[in-house]
């Protein structure tokens, strides 16, 4: 199915957010996720289903002022 990862359209296989993060290659990276504008805690990724057209944001630590 097609989703939007950080604004870019991609094809993915995984049905849950947990599996998707692994599929996308984030591995054990320290990242936070939001699906369709709502924060999804790490503890809830396994039970969060992914659907066609979902907008996924994956954020990591970066420099800030």
């Amino acid at each position: 199915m097609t989703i939007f990862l950080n604004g870019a359209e991609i094809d993915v296989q995984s049905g849950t957010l947990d599996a998707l993060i692994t599929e996308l290659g984030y591995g054990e990276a320290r990242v936070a996720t939001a699906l369709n504008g709502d924060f999804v805690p790490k503890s809830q990724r396994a039970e969060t289903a992914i659907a066609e057209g979902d907008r996924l944001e994956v954020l990591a630590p970066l420099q800030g002022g």
Partner: protein
Amino acid sequence: MTDPVTFYGESFESRLMLGTALYPSPAIMADAIRASRAGIATVSLRREAAGTQEGQAFWRIIQELGITVLPNTAGCHTVKEAVTTAHMAREVFDTPWIKLEVIGEEDRLQPDLFGLVEAARILSEDGFQVFPYTTEDLVAAGRLLDAGCEVLMPWGAPIGSGLGLSNPNGLKAMRGHFPDVPLVVDAGIGRPSHAAEAMEMGYDAVLLNTAVAKAGDPVRMARAMADAVAAGRLGYLADPMEPRDMAAPSTPVMGKAFLS
């Protein structure tokens, strides 16, 4: 610690808080943070492409520095965006601290005080310890305290402008109005003298980024800012003399020779 500053129960020797953005390189950033002697560094969250590891590399540097992090919600324009970003930051950085920015106007990056108060209330009720990026507006400040904030961070001037303290009278009034609330001048500092001026007014700390990161020699400027903040604080504690309009000789007149 002889004269610590305390935010939400955590005490720090240094009254300088430093941003981590805009440095020429990660190595210079790390050296500047060390030179600044800052106890708190601001950090952010951004999109990370899978496999790039840029964010992970940055996080390792920050961890090696052993500095307390204050994540921000920079770039957020709505309450929803800011609250969601705060939740993501809490998970990634494992801290209840959040520098809350809700930007209402692009040209001056002026805080949306209405959205700020609303977001501060939502986050405080959810266990966050909020450091709101605000203006010197006393009414908004009162509302932020009512919303649960135990620190206020008024701007000196617009973010990244380096203009110094645009409204010193307003900042003095805020200091006088909230004598017991930790107050931090955040944004607009360009030179060490600006930082010292804020500290001489009795502000508890100064938060800056661009002034150090964009200096010709960021590491030297970091040291200059640390010294300026310390000097300004010491000057405040020493209770400066009152200025006067007319001269008053400092050398004793008594015993002066008559040579005319």
